[in-house]
Structure formats: C-alpha cells, structure tokens
C-alpha cells in the first residue's frame, strides 16, 4: 500500500511549521522549516496555508467600544469631562507617560549613561591650597628639624675634636713620634 507523503509528516514537524507560519518559532526551527519547504512540497503547502491564515488573524481589526457604554460608565462613576481638573489631566499624562515600561527603561538607561560619562570625563581635582598658618607651621617645623640636625652635628664635632682626636689619635701619634725619635736619634 502506497502511503502518501503527508503521512510521513509527524506531529512535531507540523507543530514547527505552524509556529513558523505564525511567526513565533525560534531561529533554528525557522531555518529548518524554510530549508525543508524548498525540497518538500507538502511542508511548503502547509506552511503557506497557515501563514495565510496567520496574516489575516494578525490583521484583524479590533471593534470600537460603543459610545453608550462610555456614557453609562460616566453616569455610574460620576466622572464627567468637566470633572477633569488640570491636576487630574496632568496626572493622567504622567500615568500615560510611565504606563509603558519602555519609557522608564529608557530614562534609567540615559541616567546610567550620564553618570558613567561624568565619572569618565571628570576633570582632575585642583591641587590643595595651603593656608598661611599651615605654611608658617611647616616652616617652624622645618627650622626646628634643621636645628636638631645642626646641634647633633655640633655635638659630634666637639666630641670628635675633644675626645677622639685629642685623647685617642693624638696620644697614639705622639707615642709613635716618640718611638721613631728614639730609634733614629738613639736616645
């Protein structure tokens, strides 16, 4: 018994074809079905049928709500065109503006860009300016430290000349001269 080609199409493949036709298939399914439709007549036909229906479905116009319903709602809620104050209409605009999530997202995006740019292009901070008192204090501290160093040098010099030079070096030198004289002169 000769089976028709259509019988070979399994349910999974048909589901994929439908999804592609209605435009909500993933990219891999889309490519797969597109390629398949080039070689398989039946796939092409089913795809075409569903796509035609999908196009009409997606283009169906929405009916407008009858005016008398608006009037009935106004009478029940007590909202009239006159009751809309400036504040109310302003609030409405705010609600309409932020009603869409895209707008807050865009605002947040712009804020992030602005903050990041401020950090990136921020000028280096100017050098710190010292006060007169700070400068004087620094000078005093510098002089004090110089005086400490100077006194240390003086102490060292005095000790060198008084103790080391006189007692240790001169004494030994004199002893040396004495010995040399004794040897050379012989008495």
């Amino acid at each position: 018994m000769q089976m028709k080609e259509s019988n070979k199409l399994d349910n999974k493949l048909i589901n994929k074809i439908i999804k592609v036709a209605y435009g909500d298939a993933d990219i891999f399914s889309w490519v797969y079905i597109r390629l398949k439709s080039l070689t398989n007549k039946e796939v092409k036909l089913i795809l075409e049928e569903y796509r035609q229906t999908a196009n009409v479905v997606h283009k169906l116009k929405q009916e407008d709500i009858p005016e008398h319903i608006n009037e009935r709602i106004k009478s029940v809620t007590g909202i009239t065109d006159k009751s809309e104050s400036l504040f109310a209409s302003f609030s409405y605009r705010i609600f309409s503006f932020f009603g869409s999530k895209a707008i807050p997202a865009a605002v947040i995006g712009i804020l992030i860009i602005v903050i990041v740019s401020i950090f990136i292009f921020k000028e280096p901070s100017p050098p710190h300016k010292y006060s007169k008192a700070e400068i004087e204090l620094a000078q005093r501290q510098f002089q004090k430290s110089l005086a400490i160093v100077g006194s240390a040098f003086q102490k060292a010099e005095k000790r060198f000349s008084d103790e080391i030079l006189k007692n240790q070096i001169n004494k030994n030198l004199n002893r040396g001269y004495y010995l040399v004289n004794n040897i050379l002169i012989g008495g």
Partner: protein
Amino acid sequence: MIITAKFDYLVKQHKKKIYNYALYMMKNQMDAEDVTQEVLIRTWQNINKFNFYAAKGWMMRTTHNLCIDYLRKHKKKNYSEVELVEDYRTEIADQDLESNPGKMADKIITDETIKSAIENLPEKIKSPFVLYELQEFKYKEISKILDIPLNTVRVNILRARKQLQKELKNYADERIK
C-alpha cells in the same frame, strides 16, 4: 482626583481589549457590552486594590471570569463540544495536495470568515488564542489571567491554530462545492 485620572487612563487603555475579548467569548454584541460595562464598573469599585501595572491583568481576568459566568448563567452552548483534532495528519492525508498545490491560497479568506471561525472555537482553546494572537498578551500573562499552567497555554494555542485551520478548510471546501 488622582483616582479619577488613574481610572480614566485604565479605561482608555484597556476598554477595547475587554470589549473585543468579550465579543469573541459571548458571540453577541449585547452580552459583550454588558460584560464590558460590568468590568469597568468593578474596576472603578476596586481601583485602590490593585497595583497600576497589575491592572491590565486584573481587568482581563475579571473579563474572562465574567464571560464564563454569563455563559453558564444563560446556559448558552456557544461552543461546540466536539473533540479537538489532536493530529493534523489524517486530515492532510485525505486531500490530494499534489494535484492542488496552493489550493487554500487561491481561496479568499475574509475577516468575517476568520472571526466567525475563531468564535466557533471551543472556549478552552479560544481564550488563550484570542489573548495571544489578537490581544498580544504573553504566555505568562495568559497563564495568570486564565489561571492555567504555562505549558497548557502553549498547547491550547497550538490546538486552536490547528482547529481554526480545519474550520477554514471546511469552509473553503464548502464554497468550492
């Protein structure tokens, strides 16, 4: 004043969706108008009970529940109880596609035909189909509105597409005869 503005905004934004959903569900203008009016009044009465961004879901859920209540109360057998065609293969196999390539494409499918075919879908698969294809709700939103699992939403939309195609095919075949 801010409540008035909020209500006014919600009505302007969603009344068309509510009315059209009710039209597809109720299949007649009078009942659809009643449902729409009831939903809008309930929205006004509960305006402080829901978050501004959750309002859309709340309004559509109320619309759906009211439609179901109306259909039950009026005992309208608007939807056929026929079993869904789970497998499209048998149907395709019955037709001599090779001898008639582009058979469906040659037939004129008018807006009214499609609308009528959508209206005739069983309620279980019609709701997610209308919300997804015509009202542009996401699967997740539909799942919340109809209080059914996400996967059921997907499956029912797929079934509705198949069923709709079948209805249109039948219609086209009748016209050819």
